[in-house]
């Protein structure tokens, strides 16, 4: 539906504006559309933007969750699939072992094996060929 312009006349009380009822009918019809099927709220976001999932093996599927968790006990190599430009994913990793992230070209921050959690945010700037990561530690 196109936007409805509410007539307000040329100057106050000139009698050329819409009636109050007509004006609010127009407002209602427009807010009905805004809050209708196309209205985006948290409930309508797909799971890839709202859910947390444990990394079962080594693949981090960008299309499956927003937050990924894993405890590492030995050297672990993560791969990333379904990476799309502009996507940001959060990894919550713990464990005093080495973690390799395939395709991550630039890293800011240090992983701490003694931290209770390492929060790693990964953003793709060019599909899977260019990903940047930042690490924060939770004591």
């Amino acid at each position, binding site marked *: 539906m196109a936007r409805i312009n509410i007539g307000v006349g040329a100057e106050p009380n000139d009698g050329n504006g819409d009636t109050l009822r007509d004006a609010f009918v127009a407002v209602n019809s427009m807010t009905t559309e805004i809050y209708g099927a196309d209205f985006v709220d948290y409930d309508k976001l797909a799971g890839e933007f709202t859910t947390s999932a444990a990394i079962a093996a080594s693949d981090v599927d960008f299309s499956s969750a927003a937050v990924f968790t894993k405890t590492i006990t030995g*050297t672990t*190599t993560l791969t990333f699939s379904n990476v799309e430009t502009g996507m940001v994913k959060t990894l919550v990793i713990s464990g*005093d*072992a*080495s*973690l*390799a*992230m*395939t*395709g*991550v*070209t*630039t*890293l800011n921050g*240090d*992983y*701490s*094996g003694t931290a209770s959690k*390492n929060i790693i945010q990964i953003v793709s700037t060019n599909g899977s060929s260019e990903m940047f*990561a930042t*690490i924060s530690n939770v004591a």
Partner: protein
Amino acid sequence: MKARIESGKIIKYSQIPNTIVSNGKTYVNAKRLASDELEELGFFDVIVPEYDPITEVIHNLHFDNAHPSPTPEDEDATREVFTYDKKTKVISETVAELKISQIKALKKVAYDKLSLTDWYAIRKAENGTDIPASVVTERDGIRNSVATKESEINALTTKASILKYDINF
């Protein structure tokens, strides 16, 4: 210590960096990588060959892909390491100059030892108070040691033997 070839140069690491970027991967907490995993990333031990630091110097750190590394099971075993070559140190001083230098150092050792009891000798000179016999014996021993060692240094004929001579007593 380990080293790795980076951009054509051998870079030594006293400890493994926390983050390593290699082969399209970023490794974090890399200090927890096992030796074989580090070797896959190009990090190999730096082996310093046994050498005499008085007469030899080490130089030319290089990669050795078959460094002897015998094990109980295999005496001929080798492994990949970074190591140095060693060569004879060039000593510019003459034998006579080295002797003078060693004797000077020897006398400094004796001076320091005698200084501890010099006050007995000063008191004797100023007040006439006798120096305890044990102190006299000790000071005589120091001077005798210097005389003996000075003779031994003068009898040496090679630069290496002079440099290796222990002046301490």
